[in-house]
């Protein structure tokens, strides 16, 4: 994944001619691959952050539920 992102930055900076004989969708597929990688990174960061938040001593305790059946469950 980091290789793909590094390559993306690299090819953005490089200048090169275009040839029409290649499958015209290749660039689009690679951009979507880049977006898929970003989605994985973003999901990873979200999971990591929620784990960190869970470990923090001053994290907010969950609000009491309005559902009476839940309140009963918490009392038992």
């Amino acid at each position, binding site marked *: 994944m980091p290789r793909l992102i590094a390559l993306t930055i690299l090819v953005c900076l490089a200048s*090169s001619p275009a040839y029409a004989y290649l499958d015209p969708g*290749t660039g689009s597929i*690679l951009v979507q691959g880049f977006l898929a990688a970003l989605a994985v990174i973003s999901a990873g960061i979200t999971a990591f952050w929620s784990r960190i938040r869970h470990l923090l001593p001053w994290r907010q305790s969950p609000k009491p539920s309005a559902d009476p059946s839940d309140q009963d469950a918490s009392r038992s």
Partner: protein
Amino acid sequence: MTAERVAGSYRDRKGYVFTSGDRILRSVVGGAIGVQRELIESKVFKQLVSSGRLIGTGIARDDPATLGLKDPTLLLEHERVRFISYPYEWPFAALRAAALLHLDVHLELLDHGYTLSDASAYNIQFRGHEPVFIDVLSIERYVDGTYWNGHRQFCDQFLSPLLLSAKLGVPYNATYRGRLEGISSTELARMLPLRHKLSLQTLLHIVLPARLESAARRGRVDARGVAARRPLPRSSLRNMLTGLKRWIGRLSPPSRHTDWTSYATNNTYRDAERAAKSDFVARAVRAAMPRTVLDLGCNTGDYAAVALGAGAGSVIGAEADAATADLAFRRAQKENLRFLPIVQDAANPSPSQGWREAERLSFTERAGADFLMALAVGHHLAIGRNIPLDEMVRWMVGLAPRGVIEFVRKTDATVRKMLSLREDIFADYTEDRFRDLLAANARIVDCRTVSEEGRALFQYDRRE
């Protein structure tokens, strides 16, 4: 009645469109039969049809053998679109409306487990100014993680032409018509100045794909491997589509002033003359009650609105100036007129082209109008473009069986201006000769001089 395959319907192996008399039918074969049956019964399909975003479609009960079809097939029947237009003829606002509809339909399908297999702009048609998606066969079941295969096509056929106009101020119509497949986003990436390349959306849809394609060509990255290893979450695909929709919705052409954009308010007519002209046109339209009017040289649509007000079913406008056609389209949207202005030069109309020179039909083959309005346009052809008067009259009368043609004399201020810097080689350009030529091609029903400088309207009928 036998089936006649539509020449442009050959790309998709899952089926094709054909005509049988006035009917538009589609043969669906193989694995697509099950998907199409399920789709037609689905809630999303019914929603899209009832909201006017998808063409009305039902299962036809004809016996395929009577239509000359051999393979086991599912027959679909589509609602007919009266006038087929092509993206290279659409003004900016029409291409933008078509792009937004494509994205909108794709997003709605995605929410119900379907996707689009391609993103051809030719899959959109217009009913008046309202776009409608016509290719139900490109709707497929969505498989989680799959990539948007139509992305490059969407960029070439919708996004790049819009950007060419919005960012560089260059009308795309002539280039698009020459290539048929749109404006290559790889080439657009080379044309865009650096400041336009730095926006996130331009990077994502134009610059990056072009660069990555070069890298793939050099063997630095394997696209197939990337697609196989890394599925694209539905949320990412959705974000891509909504991002495009938001961006394209904000694109507009640079405000351009041409001789024609201000013609409706800045012309040689006085109010009383304009009223007399409107009255003549309205009476001729009321007498004919045409389903489709062709407004040649429609400008911003003043007389298209008059014709619609007089009872015409719909109006197709042909306007050579792209900026003026854009204004006319936006007027049709604003006033909700059944009016489709397209970019069309009467001296160089869209030809038959593409595969076997039949894939995209010529403007004249498609026009099929019942009534012609050629108002204040003849002198631009006969004098501005040196078209012989006899050929011009024959061509115009051939466009519709009935109509109104305006003749502008050489004493008119516009013609005087046109001839001020050039030699007058148009000795035969006279009202008498025009009248004789029109009478030789049709019956002259009525004639009225509507301006002091000698503009005259002729109502003709060539049906007898």
